Each structure stands twice: as structure tokens, then as C-alpha cells.
């Protein structure tokens, strides 16, 4: 409502003033080529600039008194040029690190040279290229301290993003993502692989990562895991610019899980099986993994129009992506529409920034149980039978069962894919209106308002025909036809004042921000009964309630002071007061302060004249951030929930649904992380070498930790309480260099490396309680009821493996079921399990390089991870004879069986440290070659071509399919629930494809 009021106000505005026109051309100092897309503004204007065309030319109308134009471009910094009467020639110098860049920080912007915190920016020219279905993949390997791991090879699957190791154990470790000023919820959207997949990667201009608390504390209780600010492209005044971008790709799997061939399988069964089992074998030789994978074709097209109608800059983009998965039947179709308007009114006193984006997806999710199914299905059986039953797919039959199918036998993997129709049709719209009003009577004071929304609808259904073996019921009433739906309405309102002033008398500059923020996250989750394929309802499957409306809310007040003295001593102090609805009254509000100091050493007299040092800045920061994401909305509240009808209890002959009290913790509050950071930014040789080094320590206390409650003291044995401490310490280093910079040839190199050490320092109410071994995590498949690979214990990193120590024979072969009896009591039991390595890497790095020669360019991105270990659950589960012969039907085994000869059936063997191995790796993420054809169509257009290969190769000693196992695997199931997996446990990962993509970009 108030937004509309303000919109109405614009209409009274006056756009007219006395103008004159200035023309000119902008070129690159490197090679003299024209620079397109450079923003040209009158000095002092907040908006209302133009951008240069494909030929580098521009024409701008400015007010009479304007004497200076400001030229800015991402990667080239800012340059001020005085204007005379005639056309002007401007030469911009590219800077490898873009030190003059304007960086978006929380509630404002800052020049990169003036930053006091650990902040990193990646802009479009440094994005990874190729087939991108979620935008964060574009900055993988580009920023020290930031690890981005795609959760799987499924199109649209999200990534696990960790900034400096993640601050939490049981609460969320995901950073806060802010899109053009709208903080996004990390909650999954049903029917979509990732909440970020709705953003068209082609619309993104830059990512800014706030890593330390002094930078992030302005976001208070949401900032413990860092903040990623995504800024999208905006319009600029000037003539219409059209850009067409098309990427077409084909992807394929890079390898298969190593299992017995049909011939190997036959000989094992013939040698070891009973007569009945030998007779069970078929005559075929089927490679089931070949059956379920395909070459994945994809196309991604974006058309964008930008320009300005008078002083009304706009940008409109439309994207369409159609991406198949390498798993057959997997497909994602996505349409995105983005619209921005950034006009200014009242002589630039009111700047308006309107962002609206909408997208729809139509996804079919391949049934991922086929991945494990293909590993273990009997390779001697054919894919199809002539019988029309079960869709014509071969299945294990049992004439004595009611369904005709073997109970508990695996189903035909290809049948699982083709006979499951799992469709998601989510829609999302995110938008905001930002007003920046410069007071007429006090131009140093700005009033800013940001009103935003994030509305989405997750919906879809799962249909399985009644002929499908996976849910066959005798009599033809099987299958399923189950819809799901959830709508979300998140609203944001922020208002703040910004006062900036140069205090020349005391050589100071002041920049103060203070404001208020309101965020509301409201969903409506619909509950449905279950249905068979023929639309008849499964008896008694009605939910207890037709819908649920989970909601949480944040209120905040924040302030920031930036003070600069003599342009070389910088102070930033921030404070945020946050209130969260997730805690009980009395525990809702908290303070989150930070302070940072920076010293531009190179501006001191003793260095000012040293030409080789172009930048040297020391940064010190300390701050406290909080965390309240990833915990229940009402965990503090004593409430009762009614059971479903299928969980009723019979008294007499009536059935009653039951009220269950939930465990609750009235003392629950946020966890907090205190971060100290020391950083040094450097630049040498006219900034041809730039970079930074940062040392940090993050101490998280009051961990939101799911801990055991004393039995009998509450309704639940485990729930979230604020108990425990954890530290992350590390070093980040990055260097960007331009070894060659000449007219025809440039060579850029970027390298970053991070060392992070995680340690749990307390987990119990009584610190130092040694009787508490820790909490297990990391589910291992292969046993029912949960067996865990990790034990998270005090004094060790999280995700540390806790297994039996395998005993080997003289030839180095593991002896099945024989482990080191650590306490020498003659029995091997849980007390003989030992801690070993962690699944989390100690070191990770990224290396990028790019060479430009005349119209050609070529580059690659390497990414590595060291000190991380994986548990090969495929070996442990399927690498034994029991896997093949120990069930009612035959199953295929991992070729690891040929190495170990394990008989199987020993429950402890699953917990052997034989199955963990070093999963350090170096991955060639991306190689690309580009050709800038320059002007075509008589100078009307510019054409650029790009050929890239993603996931080129991996160098690793790890013997499984892929050493990189993200924390969130398997990927989100339709219906919205993300089943959180574990890093480092390798079991039926959706393979990451190797993709070859050809990109064409035409600009008019």
C-alpha cells in the first residue's frame, strides 16, 4: 500500500531541465578495441547515465553546468574525464582485480579500496561458462574460503555452499543469499531441485561474498555462515541494446560404477550358488548402467533488451532453458522473465530501482532409485520380456505371491525410470522496489526504502501406472497418483537513512546508515490423501489437516558507521538488533556488533613514492553474528499435534486419533559466532599483481545442537538446544596476476587457496563431560535401522569417521570380519571403534587462467580439495558374496568383491575403515575457448562464440565414481523435503556429467 503511494508520487515529478549533448568513444587501453557497456554518467548523478554501444560510442545529454563525466565498467574501474566542447576520447585501463570497482555490501555500496572486511566479488567476466542451471555454479573455485559443490549431476540440482567451513553443527550451514536486496529463504521449493535455480544465470551481474563478521554482522542473526549478495544486470539510459545468448550442450557420464560383468557374474554364481540359484540366471548380458544413462542434450537461450526511454532505463530479459539429465527421463524446462526499471526523478533526488522476476519450471525427475538399482540388478537378465505385464519390463517373479512378483526383490531399473512420472511445476516470482531519496534541503542525507516479496508455488505430482512393478497390487489397483503443493509468500520491508559527509576541516569522511528491517516467511503446505493410479483413494490415507501454515518472522534494527581519516585510516562499526519469532518471548532479541579497522599503508608517505607497490592495506575485524536458520519454527512452544487417521488407536470398536505433545525447549535461542579476521590486500606493479591474505578464527558458541535430553525430562529424547562450541580457523590466500599485457596478447592468472581447520570444542551441558562420546551421523546404507560412519566428538573435526580398524593379511588383503581389538577384551564391539580421518577437506583451492590473443581467448578453471576422505558405501554394501547369493533373488556386486573375496553377512564389516580412502582431488571444472568475431552485419552487431567443456577430468586416488560428495545428497525429492545426506559417504551419487557446450552471443 505505501509502495503504491510512493509510486503515485513519481507521477508528479518533473523530468525537464536545461540539457546539452556530449558524444564520444571509449576504448580499452590494452588493445585499443572499443569497449561496449561502459556506463557514462554526469558526475554527481546518482542515475540517468547511458552505456556505450558495440562500437564504444556514446551520446549523453547532461545538464548545462556539468563539467565532468564519470566512466565506469565492471573490471575497468572508474574514471573521471573533464568535458570540453567536442567529442571526447576515453581510454579505460582494465585492472586485473578491479580495485576501483564499486562493491555491493549490505545496505549500501563501497569502493573496493575502502573495504574494511573480508569481502570478495566475482563479476561476469570471471564466471564459469557453459551449461549453468543454478547460478552459484558460475563462481565455483573462484573465491578463497568459499566452497561450492554441486549436489549431483541432476539438472537444476542445488549446491552445497560453505563459507569458511560452516559455523554450525545441526542448524543450517548455508550462507544467507541476498538477491538485489531481498534476503532469500533457503527453504526448498517442492518440485524444484534448488531454490536458486529460478534465477537465470544470464541475468546475474556479480556475486559479492561477505565472509567475515565485520562485513556480515549487518545481517545479524542470519550471517554466521556468511552472506552472498547477488546483483543482477540493470538497464542504462540510451538506445535499445539487444543481446542474444544461446548455449547448446551435450553431456554424458564420465564413468560407471565398477560392477561385475555378466560373464564374471555367471562364473561367480556357477562356482558358489546352489542349483536353484544357478537356474535363476538368465541368458542375457545386460549392462544396466548403460540402460539408464543417456547423452543429455540441453539448450539455454536468453534474449535481453535494455536501454532507456528518455530517463527511464530498463532491462527486460527472457530466458528459456531445456536441459535433459544424463539419467533417462530426467528433464528440466525453465522459463525466466526479468524486468528492471531504474529511473530517477526530481533532478536525481529520487532514484528508483524496480526489479521483477518470474520463472516457471517444468521438471520431470528421473526416479533415482534406478541408479542404485542399475548397480545391483542381475546382469544376466534381459531388459524386456515379451509379456505385457509390468510394462513389458523384465521383473523377478514369484508365482506364489499375490502380485506375481518376488517380494523385496529389486525392480527393473529401466522400468523404474520409464514407469515413474514425477513432475514438478513450480513457479516463483521475486521482486522489490527500492527508493533512494536524497533530501532536497540536505543532499547528504538519503532515505531508502526497500519493499520486496518472494512468492512461489511448488507443485507437482507423482504418477506411477498400475502396471508398474514398483507399486503393483494384485487386481490392478496399484500404482500411485499423488499431487503435492505448497505456496510461499515471503515479504520484506526495509527503511533506512544514510548520511554521508566530507569533513574537510578534519580530513575525514563520514558515512552513517541506520534503519529497520522486517522479514516475514509464510508458507502454506497442502496435505493430500494418497491415491492409486486409477484415482481411487488409498483407504484411510486422509491427512489429519488439509494444510499447514508454517511461518517465521524477523525484526531488525541496524546501524553502521564508516569513518575515514586522511583517506588511509578506515573504521567500520556496525550493530544490529535482531528479533526472531523462533524463540520464546524473553529470548527473541539479540545484539550483533562488529568493528573493523583498515590502514591503507601504501598511502603513507614512506610508501607513496614506491612505484612498485600500488596497493597495500591491512584489515582487522571482529564481530559477532547469529544463526537461527535450520531449526523448527516453534521449538520453544509446548504444543500437541494430532495423529493421522492411519495412526489411530482402538478403544472398543472405535478408533481415535491421538494428541502427541512435542518435546520443547523454552530456553532456545540463537547460536552465535565470533569471528576475528586479519587481512592484507596487496597490489604490485600498477596492480598487475593483486591479491589478499586473510587469517580468521570463527568461534561458535551456544551451538544449536540436537542433543540428548535426560530420559523422562521431556517428551522427546533429542531436540535442539544451545549447547556446544566449535571453532573454525583458517588462512585464505589469493593472487591475481597479469603476466602479459600487450595490445594483442593478455594473460591473466588467478589462484586461491584455503586452509580450514574445524574442531568441536564442547558438546555437553557440563563442559568437558568425557562420558559423552559424541553424536553419530553419516548414515551408511546396507543395514536397517541406521549405522553411522561418523562420530562427532569433542576435540575432533566434525564428520570424523568412527569405524573398526581393519586387519590385513601378509599380502595386504583385508581379512573379513577381523578388526583390531582396541581394548583387548577379546570382543569386537562398539568400544573398539576408533576415530580416523574427516570427510571435510583441510585445503581447497581454485586456479583459473585466461589468455586473450587478438580475437581469441582461452582459459580454464581448476578446482582442488585435499585431506578429505570418502567412505565407499558401494564397496561395503555390494562388494561381497552375500550380496550376490544371500537374498531371494540374485544381485550384482561391486568388483571390489573380486579384490576382497568377502563372503558378506558380517555386520561389523560394514563399519570397517577399509572402506574409507583419501578422496583428495583436482578437478578440471571448465575449459573454454572463445572467439570474438567483432562486428558483423556491417557493424550492426557483435558476435562472440564460446566453446566450453565442463567437468573435463578429475585427478584422484579415490577409486569410486566421483570423490566429491556434497553434504546434501541425494538431491531434493519432489514434495519438497530435502533429505540431507552426508559429505563423504559415496552411495549412488547421481553422476556429474561431462558437458560440451557451444555458446553464441550476439549483441545489437
Amino acid at each position, binding site marked *: 500500500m505505501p509502495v503504491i*503511494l510512493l509510486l503515485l*508520487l513519481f507521477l*508528479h515529478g*518533473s523530468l525537464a531541465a536545461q540539457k546539452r549533448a556530449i558524444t564520444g568513444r571509449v576504448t580499452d587501453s590494452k588493445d585499443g578495441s572499443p569497449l561496449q557497456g561502459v556506463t557514462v554518467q554526469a558526475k554527481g548523478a546518482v542515475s540517468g547515465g547511458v552505456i556505450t554501444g558495440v562500437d564504444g560510442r556514446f551520446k549523453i545529454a547532461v545538464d548545462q553546468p556539468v563539467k565532468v563525466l564519470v566512466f565506469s565498467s565492471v573490471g575497468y574501474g572508474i574514471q573521471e574525464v573533464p568535458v570540453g566542447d567536442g567529442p571526447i576520447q576515453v581510454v579505460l585501463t582494465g585492472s586485473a582485480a578491479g580495485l576501483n570497482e564499486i562493491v555491493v555490501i549490505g545496505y549500501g555500496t563501497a569502493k573496493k579500496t575502502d573495504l574494511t572486511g573480508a569481502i570478495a566479488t566475482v563479476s561476469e567476466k570471471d564466471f564459469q561458462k557453459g551449461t549453468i542451471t543454478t547460478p552459484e555454479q558460475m563462481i565455483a573455485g573462484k573465491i578463497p574460503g568459499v566452497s561450492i559443490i554441486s549436489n549431483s549431476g541432476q539438472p537444476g540440482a542445488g549446491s552445497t555452499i560453505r563459507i569458511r567451513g560452516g559455523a554450525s553443527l545441526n542448524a543450517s550451514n548455508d550462507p544467507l543469499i541476498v538477491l538485489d536486496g531481498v534476503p532469500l529463504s533457503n527453504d526448498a521449493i517442492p518440485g524444484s531441485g534448488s531454490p536458486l535455480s529460478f534465477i537465470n544465470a544470464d541475468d546475474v551481474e556479480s556475486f559479492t561474498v561477505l565472509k567475515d563478521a565485520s562485513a556480515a554482522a549487518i545481517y545479524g542473526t542470519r550471517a554466521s555462515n556468511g552472506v552472498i549478495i547477488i546483483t543482477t544486470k540493470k538497464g542504462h539510459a540510451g538506445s535499445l541494446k539487444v543481446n542474444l545468448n544461446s548455449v547448446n550442450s551435450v553431456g554424458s557420464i564420465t564413468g560407471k560404477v565398477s560392477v561385475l560383468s555378466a560373464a564374471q557374474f555367471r562364473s561367480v554364481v556357477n562356482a558358489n550358488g546352489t542349483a536353484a540359484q544357478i537356474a535363476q540366471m538368465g541368458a542375457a548380458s545386460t549392462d544396466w548402467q548403460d540402460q539408464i544413462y543417456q547423452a543429455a542434450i540441453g539448450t539455454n537461450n536468453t534474449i535481453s533488451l535494455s536501454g532507456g526511454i528518455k530517463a527511464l532505463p530498463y532491462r527486460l530479459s527472457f530466458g528459456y532453458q531445456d536441459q535433459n539429465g544424463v539419467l533417462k527421463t530426467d528433464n528440466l524446462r525453465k522459463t525466466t522473465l526479468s524486468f528492471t526499471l531504474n529511473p530517477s526523478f526530481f533532478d536525481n533526488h529520487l532514484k528508483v530501482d524496480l526489479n521483477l522476476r518470474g520463472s516457471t519450471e517444468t521438471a520431470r525427475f528421473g526416479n533415482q532409485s534406478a541408479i542404485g538399482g542399475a548397480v545391483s540388478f542381475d546382469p544376466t537378465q534381459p531388459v524386456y520380456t515379451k509379456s505385457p505385464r509390468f510394462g513389458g519390463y523384465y521383473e523377478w517373479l514369484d508365482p506364489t505371491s499375490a*502380485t506375481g512378483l518376488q*517380494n*523385496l526383490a529389486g525392480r527393473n531399473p529401466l522400468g523404474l525410470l520409464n514407469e515413474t512420472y514425477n513432475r514438478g511445476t513450480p513457479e516463483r516470482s521475486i521482486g522489490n522496489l527500492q527508493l533512494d531519496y536524497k*533530501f532536497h534541503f540536505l543532499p547528504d542525507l538519503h532515505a531508502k526504502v526497500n519493499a520486496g516479496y518472494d512468492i512461489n508455488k511448488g507443485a507437482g505430482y507423482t504418477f506411477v501406472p498400475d502396471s508398474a512393478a514398483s507399486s503393483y*497390487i494384485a487386481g490392478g489397483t496399484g500404482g500411485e497418483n499423488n499431487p503435492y503443493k505448497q505456496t510461499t509468500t515471503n515479504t520484506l520491508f526495509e*527503511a533506512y537513512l544514510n548520511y554521508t559527509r566530507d569533513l574537510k576541516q578534519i580530513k575525514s569522511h563520514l558515512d552513517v546508515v541506520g534503519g529497520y528491517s*522486517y522479514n*516475514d516467511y509464510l508458507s502454506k503446505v497442502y496435505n493430500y490423501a494418497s491415491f492409486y493410479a486409477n484415482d481411487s483413494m488409498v*483407504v484411510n490415507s486422509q491427512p*489429519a*489437516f488439509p494444510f*499447514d501454515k508454517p511461518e*517465521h518472522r524477523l525484526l531488525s534494527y541496524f546501524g553502521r558507521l564508516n569513518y575515514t581519516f586522511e583517506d588511509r585510516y578506515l573504521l567500520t562499526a556496525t550493530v544490529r538488533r535482531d528479533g*526472531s519469532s523462533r524463540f520464546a518471548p524473553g529470548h527473541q532479541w539479540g545484539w550483533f556488533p562488529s568493528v573493523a579497522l583498515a590502514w591503507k599503508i601504501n598511502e603513507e608517505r614512506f610508501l607513496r613514492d614506491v612505484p612498485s607497490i600500488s596497493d597495500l592495506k591491512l584489515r582487522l575485524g571482529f564481530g559477532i553474528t547469529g544463526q537461527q536458520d535450520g531449526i523448527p519454527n516453534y521449538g520453544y512452544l*509446548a504444543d*500437541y*499435534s494430532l*495423529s*493421522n*487417521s*492411519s*495412526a*489411530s*488407536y*482402538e*478403544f*472398543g470398536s472405535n*478408533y*481415535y*486419533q*491421538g*494428541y*502427541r*505433545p512435542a518435546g520443547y525447549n523454552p530456553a532456545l535461542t540463537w547460536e552465535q559466532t565470533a569471528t576475528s579476521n586479519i587481512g592484507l590486500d596487496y597490489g604490485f606493479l600498477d596492480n598487475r599483481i593483486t591479491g589478499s591474505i586473510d587469517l580468521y578464527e570463527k568461534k561458535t558458541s551456544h551451538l544449536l545442537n*540436537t542433543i*540428548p*535430553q*535426560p*530420559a*523422562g*525430562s*521431556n*517428551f522427546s*529424547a*533429542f531436540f535442539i538446544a544451545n549447547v556446544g562450541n566449535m571453532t573454525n580457523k583458517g588462512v585464505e590466500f589469493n593472487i591475481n596476476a597479469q603476466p602479459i599485457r600487450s595490445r594483442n596478447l593478455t594473460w591473466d592468472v588467478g589462484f586461491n587457496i584455503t586452509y580450514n581447520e574445524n574442531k568441536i570444542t564442547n558438546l555437553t551441558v557440563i563442559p568437558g563431560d568425557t562420558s*559423552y562420546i559424541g553424536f553419530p551421523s553419516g548414515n551408511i546404507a546396507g543395514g*536397517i*535401522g*541406521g549405522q553411522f560412519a561418523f562420530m562427532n566428538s569433542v576435540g575432533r573435526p566434525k564428520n570424523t569417521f568412527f569405524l573398526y580398524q581393519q586387519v590385513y593379511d601378509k599380502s595386504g588383503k583385508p581379512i573379513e570380519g577381523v578388526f583390531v581389538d582396541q581394548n583387548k577384551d577379546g570382543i569386537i*564391539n*562398539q*568400544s573398539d571403534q576408533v576415530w580416523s580421518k574427516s570427510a571435510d577437506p583441510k585445503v581447497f583451492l581454485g586456479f583459473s587462467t585466461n589468455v586473450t590473443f587478438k580475437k581469441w581467448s582461452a582459459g580454464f578453471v581448476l578446482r582442488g580439495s585435499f585431506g578429505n576422505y570418502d567412505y565407499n558405501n558401494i564397496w561395503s554394501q555390494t562388494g561381497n558374496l552375500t550380496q550376490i547369493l544371500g537374498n*531371494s533373488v540374485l544381485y550384482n556386486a561391486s568388483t571390489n568383491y573380486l579384490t576382497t573375496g568377502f563372503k558378506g*553377512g*558380517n*555386520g561389523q564389516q560394514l563399519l570397517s575403515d577399509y572402506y574409507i580412502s583419501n578422496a583428495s582431488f583436482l578437478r578440471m571444472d571448465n575449459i573454454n575457448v572463445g572467439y570474438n568475431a567483432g562486428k558483423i552485419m556491417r557493424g550492426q552487431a557483435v558476435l562472440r562464440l564460446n566453446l566450453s567443456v565442463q567437468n573435463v577430468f578429475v585427478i584422484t586416488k579415490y577409486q569410486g565414481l566421483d570423490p566429491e560428495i556434497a553434504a546434501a545428497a541425494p538431491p531434493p525429492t519432489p514434495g519438497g523435503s530435502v533429505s540431507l545426506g552426508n559429505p563423504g559417504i559415496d552411495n549412488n551419487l547421481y553422476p556429474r556429467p561431462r558437458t560440451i557446450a557451444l555458446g553464441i552471443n550476439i549483441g545489437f
Partner: protein
Amino acid sequence: MKRNQSSIIITAAAVLVVLGSCKKTLDLSPTNDITAPAVYSTPAGYTEAMAKVYGAFALTGNTGGTGQPDISTQIISDEGNSDFLRMWFNLQELTTDEAAWTWENDAGIQGLHEMSWSSINPIIDGLYYRSFFQITLCNDFVRQSTDALLASRGITGASADTIRHYRAEARFLRAFQYWVLMDLYANPPFVDENSPIATAIPKQIQRADLYNYIVSELKAIDGDLAPARQNLYGRADQGAEWALLARVYLNAQVYTGTADYTDAITYCNKVIAAGYSLIPSYPDLVLADDNLNTDEFIFTINYDGTYTQTYGGTTYLVHGPAGIPGSVSGSNGTWGGLRCTQDFVSLFPDNSGATDQRAQFYTNGQTLDMKDLYTGTDGFSTFKYRNVTRTGGPAPDADAAGNFSDIDFPLFRLGEIYLIYAESVLRGGSGGDAGTALNYINLLRTRAWGGNTAGNITAADLTTNFILDERGRELYYEAFRRTDLVRYGEFTTSAYLWAWKGGVLGGSAVADKYNLFPLPSTDLSANPNLIQNPGY
């Protein structure tokens, strides 16, 4: 123009002030969940709360099958394993000659039959936490159902009387769970309706003190429970209370060091005098329509294929036994897990069921000898639990997929009372006599022989050792075996060895500490008041 601008400024400033001050509340509440005063505001609400108190026995959570577990996944990650009966059965039976489970990789299985468990075992931990879950539900109900609260909520008359019965039943269920904890873990923490939620750490209670509490609590509720055989099916009455007292007294020597067989006989007599009788045919005992067996059943846990769905409970006892086709068990097939040792099978002189019909063994494809502990075909399995009606028809409330069982599980039935009576008489309790004891045993044996007295025994045959074997034959797979073997001193010692006891094929004695289960290490870390059982 000027006027225009100042009006804009004023308006914009006003908008900012208005929006800045619209500080909305942070106190949100859930949509569907309600608070305790709302639940306990009507008689219907009390009934729904009571449905959960009872349902905590049968169900694993708030959704049939799996979905909203009661027990945290940190304790048991597979919800289907987290119900009371499946875990109790596993601890009472898999540790004995009666049963072994094929799938060693299933969490907590390994070490149970071999008797080498530790304080980190999801089944041992799980039953402990499940028992306390029901105890805290009972406490909550008892707390909310005082006469004063009922009066203050305007609940009077017949509704109030019903709730008073509920209250006594909640206390009975709590006493039952404390008996389970006393029997398996000896010295658990103790909480009752006076213990606050979320703000206090429970104290540990010693086994003998817990015994006194259980006995006095059961006696205290006697007048508030419905008379024996007078309550609605599925709800506890005086018969259940007396039966539990008889069971507790039978094992008094184990729990307190002092035997009390006389009181055991006293309470058996009270049960028997209430007019229970054996149903005619043993094979009809635990079938889908066993709700008809109210002559014999004293108190049951009720399951239903449509309304009370669980992967534990009798669903487990239907699917669990190895090798039994779905057409026999009345389900969609076997999970291939449960088998008996040859030592147990040999308690029956004839394992075909032709004479003693209680020998309901499935032998097709199964070998008698359990050569390997973890091979599904080693050892006979039993089809005692079948999800079919007496006439062989499908279960009345069967689910279409054939997953869930309709069989109600008898926690107490007359057969056990007869056996307690006879054993207590033989062990010197007064208030009964040997002739009646022999008669009761022969009632069981006549039924076992299909109404034929050929299997009847003489007074000379009736010894305590005979009773132990007879309890095996009559009550097997009803979660008695471990308690019985402990009472007879045969559980850990070499007095009785069975296949794979102690982890060796021929069986071996194990340390005495295995007569008790350890307290979960998770609770020891959470509750500094606890002291672990000796040896763990």
C-alpha cells in the same frame, strides 16, 4: 514546483514513520498444533490424548507406517524399528534360544543373540527411550486429569468418570513401563506427574525401590480401574493390574532379592476368579480376528491394517519369520529374518504340530540346525502369527498392499496366569495347591493337543524345570523368554546352552552382567545423576 516538493517530502517522511512503526509481533503460533489447555479442555480432547498414551505402545509415530516418528531418529534412524513391541520382542527373544534374526547389518542386531552388546545399541537404547516416551505421556495425562482441573474445566458427571478411569489406566501403563525398565535395565531414572518438563534432571531409582513403587502404584489404582472384563476392548482394567502384579511377584527374587510367590498366587487367583477361560484352539490365538479372544486375553496392544499401521508390532511378527510365503502369513511376503534355534524346537517332542499343536513351525526350505547364525534358511521359523481370520479369510481391515497386520498382541492372557500359579505353588508360595496347579497345566496341554488329554502330565512330571519348558512351548514369541531364563538362572550361565549363545555354535556361558541391559550411553551423558549397571 516548490510546494509540490515539500509535500512529497512530508508524505515520504510520513510513510517512513508509519512503516517503521508497524512493528509486528514476533509471537507466532502453529496452525494445526494446539497447546495443552486446548487439548485438555473437552472430554473428547482427553480421549484423544488417551489414544496417544495407548497408541505409544502400538505405533511408531503420528502417521501410520512411517512419517512422523515419536522416537528421535538419532536413537533409531529407521522408524519401523522404533515401536515398543518390536524392540521389546528383540531384547526378550533374540537374546534367547527362541529366536535369531538373519540381517546382521540391521542396527543393533549384531551382538544380541551372541550376548556381547554394549551401551551403544539402537535397540537397547530404543526400548529405553520408548518406555520413557510412554511414561512422560502418562505423566502428562495424570497431571492434566486431577479432579481439581476437571472441575475447573467444567467436566463433570459421566465424562469426568470416564476420565478418572483413563487416569487410572495411564497410571497402570506407566507402572507397566516401569516394570519393563526394572526387568531389563534395573535402575532407570524416575519421573512421575510431579516431575517438571524441560527444567529438571531426573534422579535414578534403585531396582528394589522401583519394585515397591510399581507394587504400591498398582494397588493404589485398583479402585479406580474398571472391574475385570468390564472395560472397552483395548483398555486396561483390574484384570490387567492383577496380572501385572502376579508377574512382578513371580520375579520378586530377581528384582529385590526376596521371593514373594504367595502374593503371586493371590493375584493369579483374583484374575482366575474374574471368569477368564482359555479359547478352544491354540492356533487361533494370535490371528487377524483375535479380538474375539476376550475370554482369554486380559490386556492387548491393538493393531489394525487400516487405522493402526506400524512396521513394528505384530506386522513384524507376521513378516519377520523366515521363508513363510505370504499366502500362509496373510501378508505380502516374508522379510526372511526370524528363526528358532534347534534347542528351542527340541522342547517339542514332535515338531510337526500333529500332537502338540503349539509347534507351529515352518520347515519348507529351512534346516532344523542353525549352523550359521545369519543365514535365513538355518533354523525353523514359526507361523504362530498369521494375518488371517480363524476361517482363513483375509484380515477385516487389511491394507491393499498387504503390509500391515490386524493382529492384536496379548500383553497378558490367562495361559500365563496358569503358569505363574503353578510355578509359584511349586516354589513354595501359599494360597494355592498342587492339584489346582496340575489342573491348570493340563488345561493348557489339553488345548495344545486339540482337546485331547493324551498330552496331559502327572503330578510327578510337574517340576519347576518342566514349567520353564512349558512356558517356552506355550508363550514363545510373546516376549517372555529372557525374563524366564534370568529367573531360572539359565540366561547367562552354562546351565542351559543354545546355538550361538555367547557367539559360538555350541553355546557358551557369558558374564553375569548380561542379565541386565546397560543404560544407554546417551542418557548417561545427558543425565549426570545416573550410574551405569555393573560391568558396562
